[in-house]
């Protein structure tokens, strides 16, 4: 089974890879929030183009990035079908008495472009930094420990659970099971998911015991060595500048 390794290409070399993790997280987050609050479709489109430009600069393999972005697009695609029918505005067509509006189409495109820009930036940010470094950076940025621990354990154990799922699936296939969309198939699949949850719960207890036996008292601490260089300051200033500009340009 394929592992969902977000940082599989973090050892590559590019200006984005070399960007200090703290500066990267702060400036990318700033830019993401800025782009998702854009109301003008032309600015949203420019934001999307800019996020793809950043992705290009990061030299991440296109297949790796597009596969993930495509999944988000499929999730958002229904908006293009629903919103022109539900948002009031200028009518561009009428199908059996149901009006299709231009405003609905623009609004759906705006949402999709904003979301794709945000996902592309988030993906670039996470994929160009080792995951452990991202976690350490979040600690360094004083993000609440509980949140970081949840992220950290999710990432660590998703591989273990994937393996467990894979073993159970193989075992079921060895006994002649093949998933069909009928009551029996779905009921077996449901039981299997239930078993995964029970196993995960048991594992949680054992992991916690192991943590306590190493002195864990609710606040894991890590060692992190980060140093900002002049390049990092310049790059983050540019990105934050762009994030501000997309909202402030109309006042200039």
């Amino acid at each position, binding site marked *: 089974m394929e592992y969902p390794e977000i940082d599989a290409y973090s050892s590559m070399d590019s200006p984005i890879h070399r960007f200090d993790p703290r500066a990267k997280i702060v400036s990318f987050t700033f830019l993401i929030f800025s782009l998702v609050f854009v109301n003008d479709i032309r600015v949203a489109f420019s934001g999307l183009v800019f996020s793809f430009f950043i992705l290009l600069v990061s030299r991440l393999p296109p297949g790796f990035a597009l596969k993930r972005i495509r999944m988000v697009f499929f999730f958002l695609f229904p908006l293009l079908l629903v919103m022109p029918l539900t948002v009031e505005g200028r009518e561009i067509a009428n199908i059996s008495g149901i009006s299709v509006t231009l405003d609905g189409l623009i609004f759906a495109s705006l949402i999709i472009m904003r979301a794709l820009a945000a996902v592309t930036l988030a993906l670039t940010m996470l994929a160009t930094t080792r*995951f452990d470094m991202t976690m350490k950076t979040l600690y360094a940025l004083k993000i609440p420990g509980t949140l970081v621990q949840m992220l950290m354990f999710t990432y660590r154990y998703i591989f273990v659970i994937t393996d467990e799922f894979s073993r159970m699936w193989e075992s079921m296939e060895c006994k002649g099971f093949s998933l069909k969309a009928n009551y029996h198939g779905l009921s077996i699949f449901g039981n299997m998911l239930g078993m995964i949850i029970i196993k995960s719960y048991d594992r949680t207890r*054992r*992991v916690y015991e192991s943590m306590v*036996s*190493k*002195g*864990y*008292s609710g606040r*894991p*601490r890590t060692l992190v060595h980060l140093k900002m260089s002049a390049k990092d300051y310049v790059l983050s200033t540019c990105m934050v500048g762009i994030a501000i500009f997309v909202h402030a340009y109309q006042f200039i």
Partner: protein
Amino acid sequence: MVEAIKVEDLNYSYSDGTKALEDIGLTIYEGEKVVVVGPNGAGKTTFFLHLNGTIKNPQGDVRVFGKRISDMKIEDRIHQVGVVFQDPDDQLFMPTVFDDVAFGPINMGLDEEEVEKRVNKALSKVGLEGFEKKVSHNLSYGQKKRVALAAVLSMEPKVLVLDEPTANLDPKSRADFISLISDLNERDGITTIIAMHDVNALPTLADRVYVLNKRIVAEGSPRDIFSDWSLLKDNSLEAPDVFKLFKVLNCFGYSSDDLPLSFDEAVEVLTRTIEGTEGHIHLHIHEHTHKEISHVMDSYNHHRNGKK
């Protein structure tokens, strides 16, 4: 001799009321290597969780180097007793090998330089130098086991508790792991307490054996324990293959004061015996031999054919 671990009247029940441990009492001395054997569900892991205070407020008295475990600070507890659990995936919960091995020392409040020194030392002891930046899910099972051990060694515990250290390892990893634990005891003076079913590895890792089956059923040298076949039968245990083979050789008239427990010991004993009998071993078969062999086989093969 200094008492490393002293347990008296220890009891433990699960939340549903099932008794897991009953009136446990034992003493383990500094520098000893002790193996705890017992069937599945005998309470070995639960017992180990008491030894470094993971189970808080024990019902009974657990003392580590004379101090009550429940009165000790976390930093002291983890410095005195380190526990390596059976499944390494339960113990490697941090993003990288370095973070996992550094987890204990950081919690002990050591400074960065000391933490890094300890991580390097622990990884070098388990033969995994250069693995610091690796992520746990990309390691082999044997490597994960060794990182899990390093993550405890970095706390430099005086007592090392291992739960099934050789389970699921390939023969080479198993041999490496046994020799590593042996070295830690003999070279570094670490007291080792091990739970294991691997009876063929046990003689190397045990000066003394405790048989635990919710309560302490027996205590003695490996030879004493393995000689008592009814004890083994009652507690679903077995003796090392070499020991059983020499029991059969006894039936054929082979005489030895101490029956060997391991392959190395067997070679030594055989060589000594042959040298002491002018280069020959005399084996014979009489009418009663078959009966004796059959008795030995029945005694030590009690797991087979559904016999109990």
